[in-house]
């Protein structure tokens, strides 16, 4: 019994270090990836009964995240949790990594809404093309066109500054005049006020 508990603890620590190592490399970690790694390290028997192994792993990871302040769980849109360590990845960055795995449409909407609410500020297309979002201009255009037709994205609006830069904002959090003024400030005004 004691041996089992000790082995369990060791596995927990290894799982924690897997999550940390992958976070340091800039990646989120899924349960499947942890499972594979644990099998490779002979901490779990190979070809286990998947649902059982996964359930075990779930409770192991729950304990690990409770024990270790830096380990966090993030639920994707697909319902699959990802794990990361805030020692190496901020929660904001982890969420972006998660978005990158999914539909760029959702990523754009989330980022635009978050920026409109939190700072508050509109988001330029250029920001979305830069790291770590790394969307191409075409991808962004496609997404924006899709949003026109789809429900749930009515709040995402566009404005163009006097320098011709396009910004996106969420009308839920910013009214058009305000968004326009902020975009103009961000794109033109503050550079004329160095």
């Amino acid at each position, binding site marked *: 019994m004691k041996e089992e508990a000790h082995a369990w603890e060791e596995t927990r620590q290894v799982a924690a270090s897997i999550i940390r190592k992958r976070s340091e490399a800039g990646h989120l970690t899924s349960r499947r990836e942890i499972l594979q790694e644990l099998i490779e390290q002979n901490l779990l028997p190979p070809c286990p009964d998947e649902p059982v192994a996964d359930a075990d792993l779930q409770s192991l990871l729950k304990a690990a995240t409770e024990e270790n302040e830096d380990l966090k769980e993030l639920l994707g849109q697909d319902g699959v949790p990802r794990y990361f360590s805030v020692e190496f990845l901020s*929660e*904001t*960055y982890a969420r972006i990594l998660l978005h990158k795995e999914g539909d760029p449409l959702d990523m754009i909407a989330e980022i635009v809404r978050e920026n409109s609410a939190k700072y508050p500020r509109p988001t330029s297309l250029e920001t979305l093309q830069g*790291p770590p979002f790394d969307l191409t201009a075409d991808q962004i255009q496609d997404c924006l066109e899709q949003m026109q037709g789809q429900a749930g994205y009515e709040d995402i609006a566009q404005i163009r500054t006097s320098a011709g830069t396009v910004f996106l904002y969420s009308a839920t959090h*910013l009214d058009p*005049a305000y968004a326009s003024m902020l975009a103009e400030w961000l794109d033109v005004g*503050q550079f004329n006020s160095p």
Partner: protein
Amino acid sequence: MAKYGGWAGKVLRVDLSTGRIWTEDTVEKYKDYLGGTGIGYRVIWDEVPASTHPFDPANKIIFAVGPLAGTGAPCNGRTAITTLWPTCWPQPLVATGHMGGQFAAELKYAGYDAIVVEGKAEHPVWLSIVDKQVQIKDARHLWGQGIRRATIQISEEIGPEAAVAAIGQAGENLVPLSVVINSFSHSAGGAGGVMGSKNLKAIAVHGTGGVRIFGDKAEWEKLIQYHLSLLGANNQHVVPGSPQPWAEHYNPASRWVASRGRKWEASTPAVETGTCEPHNLNRIAYRTNNLAYFLGPGDIGWKYTVRGNGCTGCPIRCHNVLKVPSVSAKYGIPEVGQNTCAGLFFGRAFFQNFPDGPKGLTAIESCMVGMHLADDLGIWCNYSQLQRDFIKLYNNGTIKSKLGEKESKSYSWDKYEKGDPSFLFELLPRIAMKEGELGTALGLGTGYLLERWSIPEEEWKKDSKTCYWKLGHPRHHTSDEAGQCGVILNTQFNRDAQCHSHTNFTRNGLPFEIQKQLAAELWGSPDAVDVIGAFKPMNVYKARFAKWSLMRKELHDALSLCNYMGPWVASPLKERGYRGDDSIESMLYSLATGDRKDRQELDQVAERIFLLHRALTIRDMGTKEMRTQHDTIPEWVFLDPAGKPPFTQGTVHMDRNDIQLAMDMYYDEMGWDRATGAPTAAAYRRAGLREVAEELGKRGLLP
């Protein structure tokens, strides 16, 4: 051994009329004014009578640094230049300019805290300072040469390690919009003509001494490390421009532009800037790239970036070096240049369009041509007011109407309209040489320019596009970004305010909730700050924020700390709740000098210096009616093009009554008289300026 560390100990006095050179004891005479602008204002008050013209031999020009200059304290490479200001209109008043580079440190190593130059030499001279050996040297062979040639020739004589502050043809020709430049690209606006009027081509200084740190060296090292740990990027932006693995927050408008994939691409080979995790103090220099910031988003700026450069001892490196190979064949100028902010886009700011758009190669080439000309001829842009005036006067036909046909034909206006940078070769030299009506008028500074061309100042004051404020100078971080606080700051000086304390905070990139938290701790309430474009009515905390901003600016200008960087009240560190430390200045000062002062005590010294500036302004204006005569606000501050009411989202314009309340609260905060906006006798006495109060009292200038 000297009683205090920090100060070099001597103020160098030079009378160019008589050739007399002597020294004063810094600590004995000026300790209560710290250095920098403190020494400057003190000398002007004591020695330069009201109504002296800036170009009179009787005007004095003071190059002064503070006890922290030349030390390892981050961001201390600043020299303050105090004099009667040539562009201050309609009447010259005292003002200051500031230059970075190596000059401040070198002056300290030579053994001086300040140089006071008065009189006028019989013929062009340059001042040579090599430790104790000070000589007035013949500069006739340098007169008529640009800043660059003069600097190189002087360096051949005095050695390559000297810091040379020189004027170009603009300063020689007493063009009010002229600069003095040291270390290739570090300029102080407005001082060029004053030096020119004294026949002073340059001051070159080389020092082999050092600055003694009073405190225990291990303690000093710890304090420096602590200060470094709180640094953000340029303008103390504490949040990266794009999401980084280590950062909870990001702000695309941040000057912290480093990221994986962002490289100094014109460096051979290229240098990756990386994620610049804030605890890694060995990568502070990679955080900022003002080329990427100002030349355009995406890859444009990075493509031409060689590396960073800047003032002595500063890890931020805001003067970026750029290499644009196309300019050497196209314009015959060196392909390498460096500068930052308004200096960087001096050339670009004249043009209204470019063949390949506002962020294309031609725009960058115009920056290169502009720097090449302006930093050699020594022309000042007055914080880009020169270019804004040019554009407005061009567009409304004034230039065409003021120039005779002959002169008008001598400019290739088609080149200007096309956005051909070679147009600058026609315009800028003529400003420096005062050639023709346009060249002469543009070099006067806005106030005298409007007067010369019979344009009422009101026309500029109601047009927000001019950014004009008062006395011939533009706004500098005002209501358009910092509401009432910004307005208050801009009323207080005799040129553009040059205060960044407030905007370094408001633009630091932290989410608004966190900014409010910090503001509450610093100025008494989260209501001290508003989100830009969602301004709220005035309150007493905003007045405190304004006072703090002003006092810290004055403190930095006296200590030699860079107000483009400090104060350091926010930091990139999550574990500190993004807090910085409001006592950095006092800790550095106390340990370096041995004169222990806490934060409040040191702020009080700053207030003394600021009050002396106020007293000088009142004395030289001959009125105590500062509120109505000096602390004025242009009309455009109260106008919204769309007619939106103040304090609604999406507008930055202010409400007249609210601003009156703002000034009331500010004067209360300062302990000044509300009706006049003038400091009371009690206020002067509190600040240790009893004799100043007496002098003003004699002249009826106390409320």
